[in-house]
């Protein structure tokens, strides 16, 4: 019970006949950057809404800093900073007015929290009078984060903060989160970008409302013990269908611009290249690959079904 920044125990939540969360349990330790990794519709936002005191779970319990979110929701609201999936700002208010408004909701002044948001807000300071609705995606994201931080929360809940933002802003954003973490703020961040997962201290993989696994990214990737190969050819679709039936191949799926092949010990990449070329495929290349979170995810999802 004690020692956890966020403790989720056996939480279930259904919307009508749709089961959004099914017995979810996880612990977020104080001061860590915890990632909730999963595809769209996995149940990430539902979990966030429950932790943020916006919804009650059908079953199970959630404690934030040892405070039960159902009974002590008023105290919990002072501790957390929540940034929902969309950058929820008032489009008609200017950058400064948005910040001042959210500060006033917590009864604090912008000055009192300014040093915390300064590294993030500095880029927005050039146009304090621009309306939030006229900002770019990356700028909206920074403003939304500033608004979520202005009351100095101890725990930051970020629901897909990098969705719909350009690559540069995405990497800048993760740098900012790293800075916030050094200030002792616990961060629970969700994403559907697997490459962002390794930036977290620990991650939980979530799919169809269930937690598949929770650990550090390195240890999770290490648990991938299969032989993995990168495969490409002139005709990727033909390659995919050929490899799926090839002896020794347990799985084959698209991975970025190439295919990933999961195979057992009987699979010989050199022989396979020759065999596929003989079947009429051009430019066949099969090379050993290192697995990452996405491979693990696909493996775990395969076990699920």
């Amino acid at each position, binding site marked *: 019970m004690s020692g956890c920044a966020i403790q989720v125990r056996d939480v279930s939540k259904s919307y009508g006949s749709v089961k959004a969360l099914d017995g979810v349990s996880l612990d977020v330790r104080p001061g860590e950057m915890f990632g909730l990794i999963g595809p769209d519709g996995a149940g990430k936002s539902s979990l966030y809404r429950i932790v943020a005191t*916006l919804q009650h779970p059908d079953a199970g319990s959630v404690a934030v800093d040892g405070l039960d979110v159902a009974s002590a929701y008023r105290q919990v609201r002072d501790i957390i900073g929540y940034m929902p999936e969309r950058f929820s700002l008032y489009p008609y208010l200017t950058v400064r007015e948005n910040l001042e408004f959210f500060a006033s*909701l917590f009864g604090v002044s912008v000055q009192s929290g300014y040093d915390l948001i300064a590294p993030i807000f500095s880029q927005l300071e050039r146009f304090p009078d621009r309306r939030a609705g006229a900002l770019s995606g990356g700028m909206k994201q920074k403003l939304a984060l500033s608004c979520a931080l202005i009351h100095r929360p101890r725990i930051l809940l970020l629901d897909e903060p990098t969705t719909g933002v350009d690559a540069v802003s995405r990497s800048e954003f993760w740098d900012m989160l790293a800075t916030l973490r050094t200030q002792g703020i616990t961060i629970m961040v969700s994403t559907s970008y697997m490459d962002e997962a390794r930036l977290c201290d620990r991650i939980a993989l979530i799919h169809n409302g269930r937690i598949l696994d929770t650990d550090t990214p390195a240890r999770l990737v290490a648990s991938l013990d299969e032989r993995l190969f990168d495969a490409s050819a002139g005709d990727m679709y033909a390659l995919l269908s050929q490899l799926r039936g090839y002896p020794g191949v347990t799985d084959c799926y698209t991975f970025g611009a190439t295919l990933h092949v999961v195979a057992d010990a009987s699979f010989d990449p050199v022989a396979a290249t020759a065999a596929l070329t003989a079947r009429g495929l051009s430019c066949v290349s099969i090379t050993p690959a290192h697995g990452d979170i996405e491979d693990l995810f696909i493996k775990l999802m395969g076990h699920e079904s």
Partner: protein
Amino acid sequence: MTSHIPEGIMILSSIIRKEMLHLRRDPQTLLVTVFMPVVLLLLFGFAISTEVNDVKVAVVVDTHTDRTRDICMRLQTNPYFTFVGEAPHADIDRLLRTSEADAVVVLHTDAGELSTQIVADGSNTTLAQSAQAYIRSVVSGEDAASSPIVSRVLYNPQLKSSYNFVPGILGMIFILICAIMTSVSIVSERQSGTMDLLLVSPVRPHTIILGKLIPYFLLSCVILAAMLLISYTALGLPFSAGVVNVVAISLLYIVLALSVGLLVSTLVRTEVSALIVSAIAFMIPVLMLSGMIFPVDNMPRALQWFSAIVPARWYISAMRKIMIQQLPLASVWTEVSILAGMTVLMLVLAIRKFKNSTN
């Protein structure tokens, strides 16, 4: 420096300020919400009128006598008629077809006995009926002594349609504007996700509700002031100390309309559906069942019962009594109590639904 002000009030004023800024920076919406009522009022007050003016009337006389000359004279001088002139009998059809005349009066004298025929263009029934009634009273005017029916219409002696429409327009405008504005503004915050941010802050739900209702209440007061100003000046409604009661009941009605908007916001999910529900579900009953156009007493019994739950019915009825008849507040006790009861019910329902939908 503001430490002596309770935090709840500070937060409330901050939410109100935010809402005001939003309104001010959305000039199109503001323009529509303030000018639509004014335009509607002027339109119904002046342009759209059921009273008949300028009936074009022609006369067919076979033989002139003193009486026929007298009748022609009276038609010429009557302000409701435009006298087209005398025409031969064969022209009646042509005059009506070409709309040179709306009605033709045929005066036939046979052996000193005058018989009168009125031929009216029935393509506009309102015009035809009014024209016939006018002509009949003008033609028979000389017989007033023999059939002394003296009719006096009280409270609205000229039967001005603006007297009839002003209470109706007020009743419709406030339910429309208030319900649409509050419901759309709350639903749009829920859609954009900013409502979630308000709710995860330490702000209490009733502060959020008040912060939403107060700005639109103030805006409605501006609209009320503009509408009353037009009614008492341009439309010439009788002005008296009773205006205090008019304002008081209107404010009650505005609060009721705002609560209806709040309730709608808890029942629908999108801005568009909020708009449609507010516009259609409220406009049609208000137009059809409030007594604004069709008298409630003429409705089938079932519709009369249904009309009892339309708030505008009671408001319009109260407005007619205190605005047009200039009766004291005591005479509208029933209407005011029903409106007050509805307001309390709506507010309780809306606040309960609002809290449930969020937590």
